[in-house]
């Protein structure tokens, strides 16, 4: 039993699990049920836009792709409860003292594991809603070749700072997107609106998306950025954001710099925004694909996530790797001498 909750608290865990499920009826996630969307009219800002402002989280255990052992698009509430409990137990499992895992964060502390924060779960078995099988479409030959080359060009993971992962380097994280995917912790966002702009502050690495809504064109295609360049417009009550001009250095499931992302934000309840994203990249996938996440109202404020400034992890990792190499070399020399 390595669950972090003592037995005496287990009924509480079950209650909490039920608590996560309650918003489902409001969030309109039952199959073929869009009636709730039609009923809800989002509030307006003083300047007349649908009001998306506030603090939101897209923390979820729902995987991007439908698991192999699942065929249906939606779980029953009972099935979901069981999956969530299992996921929470797995994530909050205590690390074993003295192991490598123990050296990093204890996710059960500081509310870092998802089950301890506001939760944006729904009944879907995958975030991908199109194709209907809930899986990323097949990759094109060009996409496969490009990703193989990318892989081959990479050094050993600990060889240098540049060989580490982008999130370990504090350059960009999955929550920034677009598309804005849930991260393992801090999947939090703040939206502020004003005439002409909508701003999304991403908690991770304090990334800010300032989305112009004034109909301006995309900049010249030679301007390439990590998060691309975004342009937004209102379609009814839905904010539609189109992003191009990616630099291709942060591929989204193997995408190229030619990826085009279309995001849709619709407030479907007082405490919920339905967020969908469609990715198009002919040079990578045989067809576009679409995912959906819920953004649930959560408590602010967002605190400063000074990732790079406090990046002892990367430093220590590199020091450790060089030490291990040195030891291995000394060991090899010793064996040679014997």
């Amino acid at each position, binding site marked *: 039993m390595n669950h972090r909750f003592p037995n005496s608290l287990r009924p509480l865990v079950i209650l909490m699990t039920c608590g996560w499920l309650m918003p489902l009826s409001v969030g309109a996630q039952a199959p073929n049920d869009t009636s709730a969307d039609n009923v809800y009219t989002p509030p307006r800002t003083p300047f007349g836009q649908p009001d998306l402002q506030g603090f939101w989280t897209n923390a979820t255990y729902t995987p991007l792709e439908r698991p192999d052992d699942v065929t249906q698009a939606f779980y029953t509430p009972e099935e979901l409860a069981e999956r969530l409990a299992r996921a929470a137990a797995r994530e909050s499992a205590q690390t074993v003292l003295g192991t490598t895992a123990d050296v990093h964060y204890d996710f059960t502390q500081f509310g870092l594991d998802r089950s301890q924060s506001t939760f944006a779960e729904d009944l879907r078995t995958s975030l991908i809603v199109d194709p209907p099988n809930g899986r990323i479409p097949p990759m094109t030959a060009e996409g496969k070749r490009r990703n193989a080359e990318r892989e081959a060009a990479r050094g050993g993971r600990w060889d240098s*700072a540049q060989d580490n992962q982008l999130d370990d380097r504090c350059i960009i994280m999955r929550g920034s997107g677009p598309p804005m995917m849930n991260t393992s912790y801090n999947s939090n966002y*703040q939206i502020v609106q004003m005439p002409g702009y909508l701003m999304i502050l991403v908690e991770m690495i304090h990334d800010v998306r300032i989305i112009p809504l004034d109909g301006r064109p995309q900049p010249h295609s030679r301007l390439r950025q990590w998060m691309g360049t975004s342009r937004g417009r209102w379609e009814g009550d839905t904010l539609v954001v189109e992003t191009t001009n990616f630099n291709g250095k942060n591929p989204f499931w193997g995408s190229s710099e030619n990826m085009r992302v279309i995001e849709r934000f619709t407030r479907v309840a007082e405490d919920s925004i339905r967020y969908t994203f469609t990715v198009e990249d002919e040079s990578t996938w045989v067809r576009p694909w679409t995912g959906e996440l819920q953004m649930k109202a959560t408590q602010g404020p967002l605190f*400063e996530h000074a990732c790079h*400034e406090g990046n002892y992890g990367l430093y220590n990792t590199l020091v450790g790797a060089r030490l291990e190499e040195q030891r291995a070399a000394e060991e090899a020399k010793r064996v040679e001498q014997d």
Partner: protein
Amino acid sequence: MARCFDWLPVRFLIENNQMRIGLASSIIMTVVLSSSLMLAVPSAEGQEPGYRAPRTTDGHPDLSGIWQAISSAHWDIEVHAAAPGLVRELGAAAAIPPGLGVVDGGEIPYRPEALEQKRHNFANRLALDPEIKCYLPGVPRSTYMPFPFQIIQSKEYVMLVHEYAGAVRTIYMNEHTEAPADSWMGWSNGHWEGETLVVDSTGFNDKTWFDRAGNFHSSALHVIERFTPRSADTLTYEVTIEDPDVFTRPWSMSMPLYRRVEPNAELLEFRCVEFVEDLIYGDLSKQPD
């Protein structure tokens, strides 16, 4: 909380006569300059007489837009002559441009031991300046770095979003609370005084500087900023700095901020972490066999 110059011998220039003369003359200069400044500035608010900014839907002056300082304050907020740069290969391109300074009275009233620390910072700025490592710039340095920043203004929040390193400040207009912890960009509460946005910030760490010349503060820093529209495309930016651990008295600086009026102006990414990885971690890379 440990102050960053605790370790310095406190014997310093207290009894140094030159220093006394320096301090005395700076006090005189302060008096002379501040009185002449008061004559020169049209009003204490720093705005053109009669200028009234457009209003937001909630009735406050609309400060939104993309702004940028034009000065050499990011090199040195104090008055300074042109000087060679530190990187020989960059020659004139990285030489230090001259500046009349933005500090009211011309000089920062350092405590003697802090002045020693400032000089140490300046002498070792290539190694110590946090900007060189792409660290968050702190306040008020973020405002006058040579990068644009955008004000996103709502009734509850005024967001200052900086192109440099994606630094961002949230100014809480309604819920005024104490800083929950020290941070690089501090904790800011704001309110309106007529045409002026007044921002009161604390909760800073002691790791940021005011400029590239090593002017610094401790974690006791308290910053009060005043953003006043002075015309459609300019703001007057006034800052008061309090930090009794470093300065003998509060002091202030002021400068105009200019709107980026290009119709296509927008903040772009200056995600500088990857530009400094070789500098910070290069020595720890695997060496070729």
